């Protein structure tokens, strides 16, 4: 029996129309449309595309929940073995839609494959669940991308082992898998050392984590006119923790109006951080987030003003998960409010 594939495309590849149709709500057709047709041909006798889901890119991103609800219902009804989306190439909104679809399908226990250009921002959203075939940045690469996607789908369905990212042409998911090597470890070590002596190329089997750097923001030209915001990951919150921010590895952040107070102590703040002895911070919360002397700098005219809101969360300040999300959200607000500089204190 052939395995069943459900295919997702946007309005353009679904042959509905261009940007003017980007607002279309999802539709399902029991036909093979656009790339789904070519993809179906590549499956041969093994599988078949049973239908094509089409949704406008704008609609998907602006009405995420409604779009996904419709799509999930179709998946439930058709009960395919595999959900394939895209390829989205370098299209950001289309990429996000593909990521949304494959993540939802993966949650429903479906095998999922998509395709994207490596710099498509949606890659990070999809790679945890989906195999993403690496494509070039334009649709001209469709004829290369589809065969790779089809080959992977066939392997997933037949139970054949999917090779390494380099072998199969997909973007590494970041999973480190234990496999058998041709030579024992000590032989590989000697070979690696010899390669280093001979200035030949070698590949380390365990790359050290690299820390992503961000461009240094230019300095503030005139501090005396600048608005400076205070942010802390030290878990300083108003007494009683009204927003119930978690005491370790917080799942959210809070912001509090401090325009009317001269210090956090005056504002009645305390710490909820679970990672350190709270006595000193509760005695004087400005020891963790120094609003007092920022306000003084404002009075002395050293800075223009202290930003109206103070931002807070808890966490050890590591480069993972939530802290990235929080930074992105807080940064966006600060940017929009025209803040010129930020002091972030960590415990």
């Amino acid at each position, binding site marked *: 029996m052939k395995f069943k594939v459900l295919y997702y495309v946007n309005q353009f590849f679904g042959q509905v129309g261009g940007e003017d149709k980007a607002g279309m709500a999802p539709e399902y057709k029991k036909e093979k449309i656009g790339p789904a047709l070519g993809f179906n041909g590549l499956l041969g006798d093994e599988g078949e595309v049973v239908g094509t889901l089409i949704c406008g890119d704008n609609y998907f991103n602006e009405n995420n929940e409604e779009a996904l609800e419709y799509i999930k219902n179709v998946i439930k009804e058709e009960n395919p073995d595999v959900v394939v989306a895209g390829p989205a190439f370098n299209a950001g909104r289309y990429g996000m839609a593909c990521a949304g679809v494959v993540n939802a399908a993966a949650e429903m226990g479906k095998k999922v494959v998509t395709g994207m250009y490596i710099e498509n921002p949606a890659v990070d959203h999809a790679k945890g669940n989906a195999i993403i075939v690496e494509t070039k940045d334009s649709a001209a690469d469709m004829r290369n991308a589809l065969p790779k996607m089809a080959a992977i789908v066939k392997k997933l369905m037949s139970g054949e082992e999917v090779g390494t990212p380099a072998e199969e042409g997909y973007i590494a998911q970041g999973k480190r898998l234990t496999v058998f090597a041709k030579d024992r470890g000590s032989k590989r070590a000697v070979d690696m050392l010899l390669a280093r002596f001979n200035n030949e190329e070698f590949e380390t089997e365990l790359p050290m984590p690299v820390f992503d750097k961000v461009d240094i923001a230019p300095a503030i030209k005139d501090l005396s006119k600048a608005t400076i915001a205070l942010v802390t990951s030290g878990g300083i919150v108003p007494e009683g923790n009204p927003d119930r921010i978690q005491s370790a590895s917080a799942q959210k952040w809070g912001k509090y109006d401090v325009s009317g107070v001269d210090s956090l102590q005056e504002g009645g703040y305390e710490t909820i951080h679970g990672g*350190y002895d709270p006595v000193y911070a509760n005695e004087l919360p400005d020891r963790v987030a120094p609003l007092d002397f920022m306000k003084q700098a404002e009075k002395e005219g050293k800075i223009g003003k202290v930003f109206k809101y103070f931002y807070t969360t808890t966490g050890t300040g590591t480069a993972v998960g939530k802290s990235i999300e929080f930074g992105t959200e807080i940064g966006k607000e600060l940017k929009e409010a025209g803040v010129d500089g930020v002091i972030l204190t960590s415990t």
Partner: protein
Amino acid sequence: MENTFDYDIVTNNPSVKDKYENIIFVDGGFKDVLFKVRDLVHNGAELINHPLGASIRMFFSPYRSIIIREKSEGNSEINKEYYINTIENSIENYNKQMENRNPDVVNSEDYSLIDENLLESAIGEFKRMQN
């Protein structure tokens, strides 16, 4: 009882508690011991032995004893930073390893015994370094 040397043992191991005088007892798990050590190190204590064990098995131990020394003089900034990094890193590693695991409480007694013995070795090593 052993004579008090210039160190303290942060432990949640009851059999260690009964054996030494200079105990900072933690009523909790391995992780709570790490947290207590973190507090102490951030307040200037020196970390004498490494907070983690030497094999993945020892991560599953319900008990852990860690030797620290309260604010010793001549603790350079570099060392202080090293201690802080070491304990912070250890906590992160512990969390990573124990994410899908529970401490191996079935073998509590054996872990308690091994912890006690490893502590004894660590104290021995520390003393050999002191004289």
